[in-house]
């Protein structure tokens, strides 16, 4: 599903975010990406949805080499990938419904299809009763659940989550983890970047450890 071959990403001569990283992630896997701040976790995830291009090396997603992808093909790659961020990245001027519908509208889906899927996705994360609320009227955990619903509503092959629980307390984090586990159970490949050790101790899965831009650990429990 995801293959990296000697991928290096540098921002100028002295700042190398990722060094010669090679890794293979199978379809349907659940993988933690861990490491301290500045280890290269976000850079790694950003390259998977083509927000960044590697300086050297090749990345293959579902067999397609995304390092050689034309910019007009990138949107179609992103439609197969759901992304969740630490800061949620929601549109605060829009309702919960509109925030989730946004992802489907961007793909030109029909109106009835949009409303059906948005309702299902929000029900899945337990927010079907908050359709018309604005994100800022809700708690941090609820906002993150909207973001997860937005990522999952398009039935992605891959779900990328960059420190999704960074701004949330332990209890809410466990609720969020439950949503990722459910998505994984449905067959979605999940990559979750975190520096929270307790997460992968509680839900043990494969762990990729990064440090100073190098892959220093690949542990399968």
């Amino acid at each position, binding site marked *: 599903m995801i293959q990296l071959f000697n991928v290096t990403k540098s921002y100028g001569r002295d700042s190398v975010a990722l060094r010669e990283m090679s890794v293979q992630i199978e379809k349907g896997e659940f993988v933690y990406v861990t490491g301290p701040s500045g280890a290269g976790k976000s850079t790694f995830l950003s390259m998977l949805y083509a*927000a960044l291009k590697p300086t050297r090396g090749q990345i293959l997603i579902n067999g397609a080499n995304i390092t050689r992808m034309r910019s*007009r093909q990138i*949107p179609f790659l*992103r439609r197969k990938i759901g992304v969740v961020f630490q800061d949620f*990245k929601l*549109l605060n001027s829009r309702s919960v419904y509109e925030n989730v519908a946004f*992802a489907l509208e*961007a793909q*030109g889906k*029909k109106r009835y299809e949009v409303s059906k899927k948005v309702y299902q996705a929000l029900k899945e994360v337990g927010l079907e009763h908050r359709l018309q609320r604005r994100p800022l009227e809700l708690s941090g955990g609820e906002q993150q659940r909207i973001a997860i619903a937005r990522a999952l509503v398009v039935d992605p092959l891959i779900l990328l989550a960059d420190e999704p629980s960074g701004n949330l307390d332990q209890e809410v984090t466990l609720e969020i983890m439950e949503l990722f586990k459910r998505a994984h159970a449905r067959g979605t490949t999940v990559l979750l970047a975190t520096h929270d050790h307790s997460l992968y101790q509680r839900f043990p899965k494969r762990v990729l450890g990064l440090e100073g831009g190098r892959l220093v650990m690949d542990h399968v429990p």
Partner: protein
Amino acid sequence: MFEYVRYFILRALRNMRQWPVLCSAAILTMAVALTTVATFFLVVINIQSLARTWSEEVQVVAYFQTPPAPTELAALVTQIEDLPEVKQALFVSKTEAFQRFAARLGDDAGLLEGVSHDLLPASLEIALQKTARNREGVARVVAALKKDRRFDELRFGQEWLERFEKFIELLKFVGLVLGSFFLFAALFIVSNTIKLTLYARRDELEIMALVGATKNFIQVPFLLEGALQGLFSGILALGFLSLSFQLLVKKSLQSFWLTPVDFNAVFLAGSQQLVLVLSGVLLGLLGSLFSLRKFVRL
């Protein structure tokens, strides 16, 4: 397809509602620029039409040293009327000239009491064909008449017509320069206004790109918004223009002392009004396009 179109229109309208101040600023700026250019255009077409009215009165008047005998006159008139530029040659006798002068003096005609009726010279008033009412036509007729020694003096309103033509050329040039300047300024302001709205919505643009919206999908609502703003500004400009026509152009043209009483100032024709509105649409589209090219990058 229909779903896309509906979505684009709704989004464009929604964007405009969301940023009313920026939107109104863009519409007003474009409307003012369009009105300025269109007012210049209106002044030029009216002055040109005035010039056409005047040029219809262009004629050559040939004054006789001594009036010819009737038979000689008839031959002369035929000879002159045979010139291709000439429409008609009309003899004005000394007495007729005196009567016309007295009529023109009106109430002051009493001043002419005791003055000899053959004071004024007899003349031939030569009206020109429509195609010859210009510098070249007049010059050819004058050259032909100058060969005839029987004429004492030739008068033709050539010089002022030339000056007037030059004035119209100048007016067109000034209109073009000022118009281009205003349009350019409007384009700059519109593109910057749209850039501001894009900046205010950069999160939205980022998220759109993140969820797999194509470049066109992101850009089209903004282009549509620009075009809609342009359309509104074009219609507004038409309103402004009709006001400036009634209050400014029409009145100032009618108060001009050389304007004939029956001269009717003209407003833009239907097709020209359409061009004005479409120019607004184009202006809005270009303004959006320039800012989007710099702003939306996937």
